């Protein structure tokens, strides 16, 4: 018998605090598996700012830094400039990256900083209890948009990959999802590619991963996956928005 699925070495034994069915856990595992594959070449430092994944330093069996809200790309810049041969990644949520930390992510991308961003987009603020996020869909109900997101009042959802793809700095930009086994495998490939881009010192890489928040969406874990597929995919199309070779594939 051959073990084909087990806990990756780059994760500790600590059980995740995430809610049942929250896909953060899947994404943690994918990142850890990819770091495992880097082997000796992959001494890694992870940076987790404020958000549901603020406790990521408990889970990744790596040197870890907990950072302030939105600032992980600046912290990662400081780490990578001091340790250019070390694999560095940030793990950020959508409120963190696309609201309070928008300046830091854009400028890290513009500078082409050679680290990898794992950007988890679940269209809501999870940790603080389900408030409207910059990625919340029009009409989506949250605790601070109880009647649904009114774009006149709260603006429109931000498309991070599309935004960054208008600029010259980034080397790799990809949006994936984890709502089905096939999509999880694709997400894993995108994460692999992003870390490979970094290992080859090709520059800034970001993988946006559409993720669920069953608790704050008010849906069970399965219905959450369906909602992600039905509601989020049309607004956040999957695909590669930038590759080092230039062979973008907007329809993965």
């Amino acid at each position: 018998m051959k073990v084909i699925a087990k806990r990756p070495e780059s994760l500790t034994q600590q059980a995740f605090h995430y809610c049942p069915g929250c896909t953060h856990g899947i994404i943690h595992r994918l990142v850890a598996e990819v770091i495992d594959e880097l082997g000796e070449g992959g001494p890694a430092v992870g940076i987790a700012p404020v958000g549901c994944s603020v406790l990521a330093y408990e889970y990744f069996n790596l040197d870890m830094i907990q950072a302030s809200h939105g600032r992980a790309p600046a912290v990662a810049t400081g780490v990578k400039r001091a340790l250019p041969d070390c694999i560095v990644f940030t793990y950020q949520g959508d409120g963190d990256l696309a609201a309070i930390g928008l300046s830091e992510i854009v400028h890290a991308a513009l500078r082409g900083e050679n680290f990898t961003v794992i950007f988890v987009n679940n269209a809501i603020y999870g940790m603080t209890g389900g408030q409207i996020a910059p990625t919340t869909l029009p009409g989506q109900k949250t605790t601070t948009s109880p009647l649904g997101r009114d774009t006149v009042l709260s603006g429109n959802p931000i498309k991070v990959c599309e935004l960054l793809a208008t600029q010259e700095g980034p080397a790799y930009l990809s949006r994936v999802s984890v709502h089905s086994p096939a999509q999880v495998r694709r997400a894993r490939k995108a994460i692999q590619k992003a870390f490979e881009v970094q290992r080859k010192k090709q520059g800034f890489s970001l993988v946006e991963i559409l993720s669920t928040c069953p608790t704050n969406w008010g849906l069970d874990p399965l219905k959450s996956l369906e909602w992600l597929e039905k509601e989020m995919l049309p607004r956040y199309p999957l695909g590669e928005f930038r590759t080092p070779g230039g062979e973008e594939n907007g329809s993965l």
Partner: protein
Amino acid sequence: MAGKGKLTIARDRCKGCGLCIHFCPKGILKEFLELNRLGYRPVSLEEEGECTGCGICALMCPDMVIQVERGEGA
């Protein structure tokens, strides 16, 4: 093909989200009736002989509850 897989389920780590049950192509994963230490109804493999070891349950599990082994040549 059937009967080549072996699952080791860390029942007390399961949060009963049901994603593995939904995605199991053989439909052989079920919710266990007894609550686990966390207070959830954990997943359980009903018909051991039917598991092919495809690994989809582990792929979709957010909490790495399931370790999958597959027989050689499968």
